[in-house]
Every structure is written in structure tokens, then in C-alpha cells.
């Protein structure tokens, strides 16, 4: 019987008070952003905000709890932005959004920092370690967001990023699930050769943990070949952004099959319109219906994208809807 698990890809908006406090404490400029060695006051503000968003998830009844990635000023580029071998340079556009991050330029051999592991340790203290889900950029997206001045060659750079992320994962405390966010697999799809390497890189990171690994591409559907290669990686679930594209995602699922588990991005992480839990449940059934015989072991119900795009109150509502939709799906299935 299918288990329905409500979760999110993390990267939450800061609570409004924390937006104010941290603006005041850190400033508004490029050099004011997170470097990984922030002082006591800033750390304290983030701790309080972390506790709040973990509380929001528990309250909403989500089945997986993320740390919230509130410190990730540079969004998915964060793990590199705090690494020693990286210089953060100009402000560059974050995909096709009205959002920007500091361009991380890799100028030396990459070494894991333990930065994300430390966040997860802090979250473990708050949750008791129950249902914790880690979030990282997938290696291909991080490779795509970064600039290489060290390795000199795409294949070597991608492999180095994969090793770097695997090193970060090895330092994690025990987690239930690891979400690897891979929007670049859609937005800047790897060409021939690189598509296979992207899959190998994901495999490398996934192999560094015993947790269930979900690879979540978004802002559309994967190209067929990219999807086919992705299925070769040793991962537990692929995510599908059904908000951005239904037909091509269904096509991929029908044509190439799926992992035993899937993640369905059914709530829009970039729109304040709050979905009805029933509508989300219906969409789950619709997807399952399209696939006929397929019976997934686990279906993760999630927003398609990160949720930092939303005003805080709307983000909270989205989480509540996902939790309720997963409960409804369980009931319907039973």
C-alpha cells in the first residue's frame, strides 16, 4: 500500500521579524551576506527563526521536517558560498526569477565545510531527530550555478562538486530523507555526455547516505534523455513539477517508468493562491490514474519549488495544505 508523505524542498522564507532583525544586524549589501562565520547575535536570530519554522512544520503536521535553510542567502548556491575554496563575486540572477545570488567562483580545491551538517545538528536538537529531512542542491545544479577557475574542464568540475557534496552528506547526523534539488536539470539541461555525468554525480552524492534520496527537478519536465539517465542513478525517488508541466511529466513516467517512490510537486511554491487539500489529493489520484498499474511505495507530496518566494503567512498555509492533502490521500487509498 502506498504511503503518502507530506514534505517540502525547504529554503523557507524568514519570519517577518527575522527579516527585519537580520537586515539590521547584517546590512543590505553583497558583503553583508552569510559567510559561514557569523557572530553571536546573528546566530541567535537564526536559531530563533529555525525554531519557529520547525514549529510551523510540526504544527502543520508535515511528515518530514526540514531545517528551513534560512541562512541560505545565496539560495541553492549556499554550500559553495561558505566554502574556503570559493570567492563570491557579483550579484547574478537566480534562474528566471526576480531573485539574485552571489556568483560563487571556485578558485581552489573544494573541501567540505560541515556548514549544512551543523544546521542539521541544530535541527536535530529541536526535533529529537524524528522525521528529519536534509536538503541540498543537486550536484548538477550547483555545478550550473557556479563558475570554475580551478578544475578547467566540465567533467572534472562536476565530479569535484559531487565529491564536495558527498563530503557534506557524510558529515550529516542521521536523517530520514535527503532532497537533492535539481532545477538546472530542467532549466539548463545537460547536453549529450554531460547528462550521463550528471546522473553519475547524483549517484555519487546519493551513495554517501543511508537516507532515502529524492531528486527534485523543477520549473518544467526533464528532457527524455536526461530523465532516462537520471533513472540509472541509485536514488529512491524522482520529483515531478506538476505545477509547471503536466503533459511532459506524465509522458516521461509512462514512457520510461519511475523509481519505486516519487515526489509530486503539486502545490505552487511561487504563487500565493493557496490550493485546497482536496484538489491536491485529486491531483495525486489523477497522476496515479495516468499511470494505470503503477503502485508507488511512497508518494511525497510537496511544493514544486522552494518556498522563500512567498510571503511568510502564505508559506505557512501551503504547509498546512500539504499535510492535510497527505492525510486525505491516505484515507482515500485505505
Amino acid at each position, binding site marked *: 500500500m502506498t504511503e503518502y508523505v507530506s514534505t517540502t524542498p525547504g529554503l523557507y522564507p524568514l519570519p517577518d521579524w527575522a*527579516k527585519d532583525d537580520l*537586515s539590521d544586524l*547584517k546590512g543590505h549589501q553583497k558583503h553583508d551576506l552569510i559567510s559561514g562565520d557569523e557572530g553571536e547575535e546573528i546566530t541567535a536570530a537564526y536559531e530563533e527563526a529555525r525554531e519557529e519554522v520547525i514549529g510551523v512544520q510540526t504544527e502543520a503536521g508535515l511528515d518530514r521536517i526540514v531545517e528551513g535553510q534560512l541562512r541560505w*542567502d545565496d539560495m541553492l548556491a549556499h554550500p559553495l558560498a561558505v566554502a574556503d575554496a570559493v570567492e563570491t563575486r557579483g550579484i547574478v*540572477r537566480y534562474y*528566471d526569477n526576480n531573485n539574485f545570488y552571489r556568483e560563487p567562483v571556485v578558485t581552489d580545491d573544494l573541501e567540505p565545510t560541515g556548514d549544512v551538517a551543523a544546521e542539521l545538528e541544530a535541527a536535530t536538537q529541536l526535533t529529537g531527530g524524528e522525521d528529519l529531512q536534509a536538503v541540498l542542491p543537486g550536484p548538477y545544479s550547483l555545478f550550473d550555478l557556479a563558475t570554475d577557475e580551478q578544475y578547467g574542464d566540465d567533467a572534472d568540475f562536476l565530479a569535484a562538486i559531487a565529491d564536495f557534496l558527498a563530503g557534506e552528506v557524510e558529515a550529516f547526523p542521521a536523517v530520514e530523507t535527503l532532497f537533492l534539488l535539481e532545477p538546472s536539470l530542467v532549466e539548463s539541461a545537460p547536453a549529450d555526455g554531460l547528462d550521463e555525468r550528471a546522473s553519475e554525480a547524483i549517484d555519487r552524492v546519493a551513495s554517501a547516505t543511508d537516507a532515502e534520496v529524492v531528486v527534485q527537478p523543477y520549473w518544467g519536465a526533464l528532457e527524455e534523455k536526461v530523465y532516462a539517465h537520471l533513472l540509472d542513478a541509485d536514488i529512491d525517488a524522482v520529483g515531478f513539477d506538476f505545477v509547471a508541466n503536466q503533459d511532459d511529466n506524465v509522458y516521461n513516467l509512462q514512457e520510461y517508468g519511475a523509481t519505486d517512490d516519487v515526489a509530486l510537486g503539486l502545490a505552487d511554491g511561487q504563487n*500565493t493562491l493557496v490550493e485546497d487539500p482536496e484538489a491536491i489529493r485529486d491531483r495525486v489520484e489523477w497522476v496515479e490514474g495516468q499511470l494505470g498499474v503503477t503502485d508507488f511505495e511512497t508518494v511525497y507530496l510537496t511544493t514544486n519549488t522552494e518556498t522563500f518566494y512567498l*510571503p511568510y503567512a502564505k508559506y505557512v498555509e501551503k504547509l498546512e495544505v500539504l499535510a492535510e492533502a497527505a492525510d486525505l490521500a491516505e484515507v482515500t487509498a485505505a
Partner: protein
Amino acid sequence: MTNENKDQFRPADHENDHFLLTTVVGSYPKPKWLNRAKDRFEDEDSDFDEDNWQEAKDDAARLITAEHERAGLDVVVDGEMRRNEMVEFFADRIEGYEFNGPVKVWGHNYFDKPSVVSEVEYDDSWLVDEYEFTADATDRPVKVPITGPYTLANWSFNEAYEDDDELTLELADLVNEEIEKLVDAGARYIQIDEPALATTPDDHAIVGEALEHIVADIPEEVRIGLHVCYGDYSRIYPEILEFPVDEFDLELANGDYEQLDVFKDPEFSKDLALGVTDAHVAEVESVEQIEENILKGLEVVPPEQLVVSPDCGVKLLPRDVAYGKMANMVQAARNVEEDLDAGDIDVERGAPTPADD
């Protein structure tokens, strides 16, 4: 060669034969006291009321309009003293929008991204009061910048319309209604700001369609400009030449004119309002430097089609720096005009292809 539309803004006492119209994109640093007045107005314990706040904004608008005059600009703006943010200000005045709180742009920079929750409707005029006040405060022509419908749609959450294109066109009709009112009030120079086009350059077709809605039934002599900034122009040029506007106002100084060649082929058939000072460098460029930048524009269009302007709104600069840039920009334009009159300028205009006519 003459350019009637542009020449209507030529000052009667203009000293040179050539005329490079000088203007600004719109926003200007707010005086510190205006920000303090706003804090007091928003403080519930303060006795600073609506009338006081209105008076403060009026004072600021008068002050900055005069500052633009003093800098010597041919066409002035009030520095957008009454506006908070380029989407918020309009969303606040359009039926169908609601605000749910701030969202991140980058780092700790946020904006109150509004949501369109029902059909957008025109209620009260947005800018006629602002225009009339500024026009009263100066003898110079006044330009009115308006955030374009594509940006208003794109930088909002769309809860109510099937897609953003539909919302964009609905908003374009409202912008058209507003421009009609502005024209009735005497406005002759309207600038549509579409910075969102840079984020999604593939959408130039819908921006063009929206502009058709915007200019519908607007008299020919009303000058319509389009401001675009910080993007990859090769992805929108030459398609934008089809847009029904008189002028393109482009940021180019910031990128050191790296993208200038984009506009040389095919021939630039509209007026070019060239960004000649960088709006994001808090250092006043010298008159000589700005003269060199103006000459870059002459590589694209003849003097008759050239307008001189900063890259973008200058509201993030210190006020004295903003003023210095305006003043040097005007001086540079006048120097180049003199050189043109004297026949001392020899710039090769690049890669022209035969025009249709």
C-alpha cells in the same frame, strides 16, 4: 533631418543648433527629512497626520523638480517623491490587488510583492495629481514614468488570471486609461518602465502587444518611451523596433557599452535615450567621460534621434552624487552639441542596412 516629436521639448532659448534632449529615468534620492516624515506619519503615537504627510511630499516634489531644473535638464521629473516602490505604488491604486507581506529579492532586500486576487480594475487616477503638481512647479516639460503592465503582472503573484499574458493585457488597458487622463491634463512625455522584460527576454512579443493596447487612441504627438534595463539586449533586438513607441531608454553605461553593437544592425529606427552615467556607481563621472559616452550613442543613431539620460533611476545614490551626475551630464550634452555644430565630431555610425523607405 528633423525630429518633430523630440523637438517639441527643445527649450526656446536653446543655444546650439543641435539638440540632445537631456532627461532622467525617474526616481531620485529622497531627502532624508522626507524619510523621517514618513516614519512619523507611520508612527501611531505621533501627531503627524495625513495633511502633514501630504505637505511633506509636496515639498519634496517641488524641491527635486527644482533640483532637476538647476542641473539644467530639458525635461524634468519630480524624482518620484510620492512613490514607494515601482510595483507597490501602482498595485496600491489598482482594484484587484492585495498585499500579503514582504518577499526576498536578494540577501536582506525585500519588497511587498502584491497578489492579484480578482479582476483588475481602474478606480481613481494614479498619477494625474502628481503630474499636475509637478507641471505647476516648473516651466520645463515634465516626463511621467509609469511601471509597465508586463512588469506589474510579472512582479505580482497571479491568483486570478489564467496566465500572466492575460493579466498583462488587462493591465495594459488600465495603463492606457491612465495615459489618456494624463494627456488630458497636459502630459506630452510618457515613459513606460519594463525592467521585468530583462528577466524574461523571450516575452518581448507580449510586451509589444501590451504596448499596442497602451498607445491605442493616444495622439501621435505624445512621446512614448520604453525603459528597459539590466538584460541581454541581443535577445530583444531588433524585435523591439516593432513596438509602437518613439524612444527606447536603455541602460548601457553600467556594462561599459559592451552591448552597444547589438543596436547597430539593423539600423536603430527609433530615438535612443542612452544611459550615459551609471546609476549604481556612487562616483560622479567627469564631463569628459560622459561626453565620450554620448559619442557612443552617435555610433547607433544620428544626433536628431539621440536623447541623453542616466542608465536607470538614481534613487539609490547619495543625493549630492545624483545631482553631480545630472549636472555633468547636461554640461557634457551641451559640449557635444557645440562640437556637432562646429562640425568637430566624426563618428562612424555602424553597420547600417538599407532602410525600408
